[in-house]
């Protein structure tokens, strides 16, 4: 797969956020937005990314961005996309959703299932670090599960 990183005049996910040094999620988001470009709206699940990037009154997002709760990024993105369609503003605009692996496959699975079945024009990005990391490495049900050394995942 070829990824074309566009030359944008400005960063769409800017510096100054509170992501830990070397955090993979912040780098991934920055690169996704470099590809997606400025005509992009993001719906974000609760998690590290939302906490680290939007401490009021600051924001790292140079594109329209919305966060509602943990399990519903797919439903929020569905609503954004449907509204843009109805208002004639969808043309050329990307609607993206960002969630962690828990916010995608565990607590977020139902909303994601609905969004996929309805066929919304939304691209859903999962940052898979294999546990609920924002709260401190708790287990969830994405298979294969986090495995200890010497153990096989299910």
């Amino acid at each position, binding site marked *: 797969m070829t990824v074309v990183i566009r030359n944008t005049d400005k960063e769409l996910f800017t510096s100054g956020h509170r992501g830990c040094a070397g955090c993979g999620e912040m780098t991934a988001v920055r690169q996704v937005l470099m590809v997606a470009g400025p005509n992009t709206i993001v719906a974000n699940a609760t998690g590290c990314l939302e906490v680290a990037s939007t401490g009021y009154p600051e924001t790292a997002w140079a594109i329209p*961005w919305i966060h509602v709760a943990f399990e519903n990024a797919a*439903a929020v993105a569905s*609503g954004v996309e449907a509204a843009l369609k109805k208002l004639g503003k969808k043309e050329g605009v990307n609607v993206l959703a960002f969630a962690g692996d828990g916010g995608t496959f565990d607590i977020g699975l139902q909303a994601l299932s609905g969004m996929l079945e309805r066929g919304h024009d939304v691209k859903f990005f999962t940052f898979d670090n294999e546990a609920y990391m924002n709260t401190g490495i708790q287990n969830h049900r994405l298979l294969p599960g986090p495995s200890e050394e010497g153990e096989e995942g299910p």
Partner: protein
Amino acid sequence: MEMKEIIRGNMATALAAKMARVDVVPAFPITPSTLFPEKISEYIANGELDAEMILVESEHSAISAAIGASAAGARVATATASQGLALMHEVLFIASAMRLPIVMAIGNRALSGPINIWADHSDTMAERDTGWMQFYAENNQEAFDLMLMAFRIAEDRRVLLPAMVGLDAFTLTHTMEPVDYPSQEEVDDFLPPYQPPYTLDVNRPMTFGSFATPESYMEFKWSHTRALEESPPVIDEIFEEYKKRFGREYKRVTGYMTEDADVIIVAMGSVSGTLREAVRQMRKDGIRVGAVKITTFRPFPFKEIVELCGGAKIVAIAERAISPGFAGPLFGEIAGAFINQPSRPLISDFIIGLGGRDVTLKDFREIASTALKEAEEGRVEPLVKWININPEEAPPGGE
């Protein structure tokens, strides 16, 4: 030009949403509100309404999609009831905190358990602190009018808050009643297209729903609360304009024969008509009784309640909800309205019509006579009386 149709309450709220030209309707079926999304879907299929319907997989997603759509600049309506409203709970706070004027019809229905699909107000009472406005309809005409006015009030730049319009399960949602409604042209004139002050717009990027620390959280809450506190004059203004345009009068709280009343019975929703009839009949028997109907529960009409009920010996609250371990929720609000008054009536609480149990003229007679006896004795003991209850039939509890 006024038109008239004989329709169910759910059709009245759907008709109001159609005439409001809603853009997006995310909805999930639940008894007794299902006819709302069915009707909207029919309007879209018939070409009578140009809107996007989102067939979500739960009420949690219905309100989440409503937030996304409203933040993107759409006029949004949905409908739910009971468990569906409870499932939305955590998201309701976020819709109002984002100041999104979503309008939601609620087929007021009892909460489980045990599961029950009939009328009471426990579902919306459980959401009273979510920062939404709450209106309660007495009949299908009110359901239509309040639903239509809710868009205008919610979208007013001085308010910018979501609104619930409650209509009692089955008594209103499924009952056919004549409803007058204006022409589309008149509605368009009353309710211009939604002009959101802030949207998710790629030409003007904004962050919605950011993380707030102790340094800013209280200011958000304060600002949101202030918007509700300052909304009554706007609501009154729009009620007044509606009356001028369409001839039907609305008040946040309405009194009936309260002036010289010894006992005033306060109620909300569809029992209000029965209550007024009971008052008429009791007046014929020489009982000095009055009635008060609360239409706007949030913002709560503190001042108006005191003005209407302040002269009575006793206020009898007849409410279709219970806060176990306390009293009915309305008791707390009305007692609060009087607490700093130099003189105040006794306040007595009656629980009626839970889970759709019929509320009759006889029940209101019993409430009035009990309350008058309490007034005579000068004490309200016990505070909470359950009307039409059969303790012998109650299921066994613990030892």
